[in-house]
């Protein structure tokens, strides 16, 4: 049914991310990459590629400066984003689409069953549980990186208020949290945005901000239902068929 529809008609698109959201995403992306490029050589300092990276970036001092500047940028961005979102939600101007609900937990279980072929595809809202998990993981991870990063940036001031052992502990946490973030992004986000068969070679939603109606209906049926409450066709418990999105 879905197949015939998509092959007959040109896919219709609908705006999913505003320009502001896309700029935020790519700003976050560039800060994240800068921090990784300037931070990982410091973690794996004994390797040859770390030495190459230091040489390429014109020395350790510049690399550290860049890391700290990107860290400041990251922190300012996170603080701004949190402030904007919280105030916006309180004023009712920003939709609380990223807030986790018990429904998300049900979605997780159902999704696992669906993947095993034991249940119907769960109905996702605007952001599914995977995106929510990634968002909150990065937010909490980012906050942890900010706090530990500041402790490492100002060790003398930190030692005025906290026992000295907090500094090596912060260094350990900073280093491992970065690894965790890198692995989550590499395995999870890149899979969902690039390597997933239904979106390969690239999910362009974050570039032009649009999503096709077919895709929206299939991946985020609740959002589709919210946007088109009058339309009834195919929105109910449609068993998903990833090949239909082609």
């Amino acid at each position: 049914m879905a197949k015939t529809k998509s092959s007959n008609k040109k896919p219709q698109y609908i705006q999913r991310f505003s320009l502001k959201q896309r700029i935020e995403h790519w700003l976050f992306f560039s800060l994240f990459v800068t921090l990784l490029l300037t931070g990982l050589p410091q973690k794996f300092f004994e390797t040859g590629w770390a030495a190459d990276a230091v040489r390429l970036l014109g020395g350790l001092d510049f690399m550290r400066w860049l890391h700290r500047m990107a860290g400041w940028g990251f922190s300012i961005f996170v603080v701004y984003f949190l402030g904007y979102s919280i105030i916006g939600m309180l004023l009712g101007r920003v939709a609380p689409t990223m807030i986790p609900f018990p429904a998300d937990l049900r979605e997780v279980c159902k999704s696992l069953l669906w993947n095993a072929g034991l249940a119907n595809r769960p109905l996702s809202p605007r952001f599914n549980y995977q995106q929510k998990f990634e968002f909150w993981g990065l937010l909490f991870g980012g906050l942890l990186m900010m706090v530990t990063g500041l402790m490492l940036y100002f060790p003398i001031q930190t030692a005025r208020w906290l026992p000295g052992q907090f500094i090596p502990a912060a260094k350990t946490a900073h280093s491992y949290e970065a690894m965790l973030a890198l692995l989550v992004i590499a395995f999870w986000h890149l899979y969902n945005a690039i390597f997933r068969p239904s979106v390969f070679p690239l999910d362009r939603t974050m570039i032009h901000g649009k999503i096709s109606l077919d895709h929206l209906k299939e991946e985020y049926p609740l959002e589709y239902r919210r946007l088109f409450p009058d339309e009834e066709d195919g929105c109910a418990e449609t068993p998903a068929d990833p090949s239909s999105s082609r």
Partner: protein
Amino acid sequence: MKLKRYPGGTKVPPGIYLESWSHHPICVKKNDPALPGPPERRFRQIPPLLALFLAPVSGTFFMLGFLILTPLILLAIPFLAIGRLFWYKGAGKFKLLIVTVMILCGPIWVYAQVGSNQYCLNCHRNPLSKNLPDGTKVSLQIHSEKYIKSVHGRKLLCTACHTDIQTFPHPRRSYKDRRDLVMAYSKACTTCHVGKFKEFQEGVHWALLQAKDRRAPLCADCHGAHTISNDGLNGNNVPHACANCHPKVFSDYKKSVHGGALLNKRNTSVPSCATCHRSHTIEDPRKVEFRLNIPKLCADCHADEELMELYGISTHVVSTYLNDFHGVSVALYGAQNGAPARLTAVCTDCHGIHDIRSVKDPESHVVKKNLLKTCKKCHPGATINFPGAWLSHYPPSPDRAPLVYYVKLFYFLFIPGVVGGLVIHLGLDLFHDIRTRWAARKGKDVDGQDEE
């Protein structure tokens, strides 16, 4: 136990020593144009036939010495004894024969000595001396038994080094003072010890020499001249050789844990000056490269489990330093091109340079009492908690640094947990996708059984 080390990792290829032997004056034909180096540097010996004529002619001293004194003492006695035997037999012809032999013996004896050190020692075994223009008196006496015992004793002729003096009378030289003389003759060593000379040319002392600093040490200043011995400048004695010019460093070193063990207990497994500074390729320790190499230098011994076991010192000291902020900085500063903009603490900044003390010594810079003061050298604002940020070379453990240990443990469990979970989820997703596609190709619907 004896450990052979190459401090700083510099190794001179073995070929270079072979090369130096290949034109050793004893081993090869003299003045072979195929050999490296200027020919006048190489050892020349007077051709024996020429010497036969030169020797009696060139010096009256030798004529007197050999024709009269030596035959009288050494030859005349046995010959006279034999002669007396014949004398009593009344054979007058023998008297003439004996006198002829006695006269001939002089040149033969001289000829036998030319080309051997005896020729020179005939004079120089005596307490000769010479006054230089600046008033210093230079002894010209050679103690032959000491020279024979030296490493060159049975190998080198006097003329191998004293290339400008081939016979008697000696050519005139114009040394202003003793240093002039030493500097002139130090060139002789480089003829054979090419490898060592090349090493020396990399060092800070050579740079001093190039800057016309006459105080710069030459071969003979450390090794001696006529009494060089194989074990003369071993680990035990190196500090004394350096102390001639670096007395302040020596007094610091003497008090240190390394110096005390070497100088008082004759323990040669501890570093002497040359272990860290090397013997010939002595690098300027004020250079950044030297500074950044210090952790590696200390690690040469302190990461050696076999050696550290003797003293009950943990080999973690190196890895814990390297994994700390200072160690990472030093490792990466070493990798970059150009000098770092700021200094980072290396081993010697906390433990001391030549005055390194045992960490059990209450005077040590790194005992708890003194540690804050040591930190403040670089971190002036440090407060009482600050030294706690340094885990004293202990790897994090529940006793030593529980917070760091548990943070680490948490991530050791958390990262594989999260990433493993994500990968499983991802795998399921991919599996479902592939299964659906496969089924679609065959015209079936995988999820069809649930369709209402």
